[in-house]
């Protein structure tokens, strides 16, 4: 890297801005495009699909145990529910749970990470301890207890609790990044320009790691989807409505597997895998866009 920098004199004749350069590579990064494409298609399906379906997803609309046909694209359940209808509604819920859980976890992770990394000292040690405690406790087990007792049955509450327990690694990562940025001279220069801590974090450090924050958020997003579907599967999901995880639970509970009703349990699992996998792949692509070191020449 140093050799290359040395060999390439900083070229004043080629004013390619950082952002435009990122866009340039983003549009040429196959992984990013493919990943983002899959997520977008599924998101649109989840947003638009329900509008085309008249009956609520759990309504018994047709004959039971139908294999996929032109009428029921994904077939029907043991009770005659339309699996496709459940799938598109489930996508909605799953996206909502992932997004909300990801946002909550990112926010907590950012606050803890920025404060611990930037202020250091005793605050850092206390926050670090807190992070480690939440990190070590098995998330699912805590959620089990909380959900079981408090009887959380709405998607929003479920997502918030997921967010409240899945922030620690994000906080750790952001803390490490902040810590290394804090030592940069531009932080000192901002101080010498009369900026206070809040202003330095929001206007110097956060913009500098915006790409990193985006990557963190995407991973938390995918993570929340996986946790939410596990909770649903155990039977601690939202009681009303439908989600991909609940579909899996129903399929498993009513022996879809033994009855050979593959159309009942394949779509929801494939949907989750596709969303989370696409998020991961897009994440790798984004990383390559932001981090020139990873761009293969």
């Amino acid at each position, binding site marked *: 890297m140093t050799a290359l920098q040395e060999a390439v004199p900083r070229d004043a004749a080629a004013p390619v801005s950082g952002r435009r350069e990122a866009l340039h590579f983003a549009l040429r990064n196959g992984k990013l495009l493919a990943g983002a494409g899959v997520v977008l298609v599924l998101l649109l399906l989840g947003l638009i699909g329900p509008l085309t379906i008249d009956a609520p997803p759990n309504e018994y609309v047709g004959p039971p145990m139908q294999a996929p046909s032109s009428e029921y694209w994904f077939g029907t359940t043991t009770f005659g529910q339309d699996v496709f209808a459940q799938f598109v509604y489930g996508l909605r819920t799953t996206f909502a749970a992932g997004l909300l859980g990801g946002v909550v976890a990112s926010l907590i992770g950012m606050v803890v990470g920025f404060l611990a990394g930037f202020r250091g000292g005793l605050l850092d040690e206390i926050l670090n301890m807190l992070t480690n405690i939440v990190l070590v406790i098995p998330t699912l087990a805590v959620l089990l207890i909380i959900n079981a007792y408090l009887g959380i049955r709405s998607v929003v509450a479920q997502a918030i609790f997921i967010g409240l327990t899945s922030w620690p690694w994000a906080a750790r990562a952001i803390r490490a990044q902040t810590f290394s940025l804090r030592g940069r*001279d*531009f932080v000192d220069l901002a101080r010498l320009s009369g900026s206070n801590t809040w202003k330095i974090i929001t206007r110097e450090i956060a913009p500098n790691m915006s790409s990193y924050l985006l990557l963190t958020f995407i991973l938390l997003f995918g993570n929340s989807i996986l946790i939410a579907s596990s909770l649903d599967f155990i039977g601690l999901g939202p009681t009303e409505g439908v989600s991909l995880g609940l579909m899996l639970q129903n399929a498993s509970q009513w022996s879809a597997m033994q009855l050979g009703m593959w159309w009942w349990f394949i779509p929801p699992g494939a949907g989750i895998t596709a969303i989370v996998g696409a998020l991961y792949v897009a994440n790798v692509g984004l990383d390559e866009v932001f981090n020139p070191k990873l761009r293969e020449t």
Partner: protein
Amino acid sequence: MMLRLDNVTKVYKVGAFGGKTLTAVDGVSFDVPEGQVVSLIGESGSGKSTLGKMILGLVPVTAGSITLDGAPVRPGKEYYRHVQGVFQDPFSTFNPVFKADRVFQLIREAYFPAATAADWDERVRAALRDVRLDPDQVIGKYPHQLSGGQLQRVLIARALLLDLKLLVADEITSMLDASTRIDVLNLLAEIKGRGLGVLYITHDLSLGNYLAERTVVLRHGTVVEMGATDRVFGRPLHPYTRQLLSAVPRLHAPWEDAEPVTSCLYHDGGATGGLAEAGEDHFVACARLEGCLEERLGGRSGGRLEGRLKGR
């Protein structure tokens, strides 16, 4: 204007929960008068950068005092109106995601919110011209599109926008090429003519010698020798200064060996009381100064020394 350091000490806490301590700066006293360049010379671990950061209020002082015109350092907007710094690595001083001229924008927001856009633009351009930059070549560029020398000048221009009394220049040329660094140094010499003091922190003796009226040599957090530059470098007394001088690679003269530092009693653990005056504007930390001088200079000047203890 006068910056005064009096017995400044910095102790860092290291280890988990601050279990151990590390004394980075230990009882340092010197002045930076207006219109002068003072160079602070030391190797890595000498505490020179910590001193710079303490003067800039970026690191709190453990003991002793730093005063500007008699008033103690109070980091904040008012203090930074008069005291500014330029750092070693220009590419780290600029936030890489923003354009380079954002450093001016920050100054405007904090100190000149009332200035009109046109007025401010003219002021920035004038400051850039003062540091021999073509404003059109700098404004609107990202840091990576400018050279290290250009960036350091931008930072000096930024400081000049304020009502500056003291500039702390911490190793500002060490990342620059030989052919560009000398012009940045010349710039420092020029701006002192505006009546402000410059503290030039460096590990490079020849650069300090070129630029500064006064020199402070630092070792392991304490001053070993200080005074007028021509005396400190023209007639170095402390063995450490002599060793440093002999290690500097010169053109036209091959390396010669100086007596190793350990040959001095002081470094064998002999206690010292502080800095002794060895001549006009020349102070040395050496308890055996008189004896040493007589041995070295053959009694030519040693006898006239008062050996008066200063400081602690």
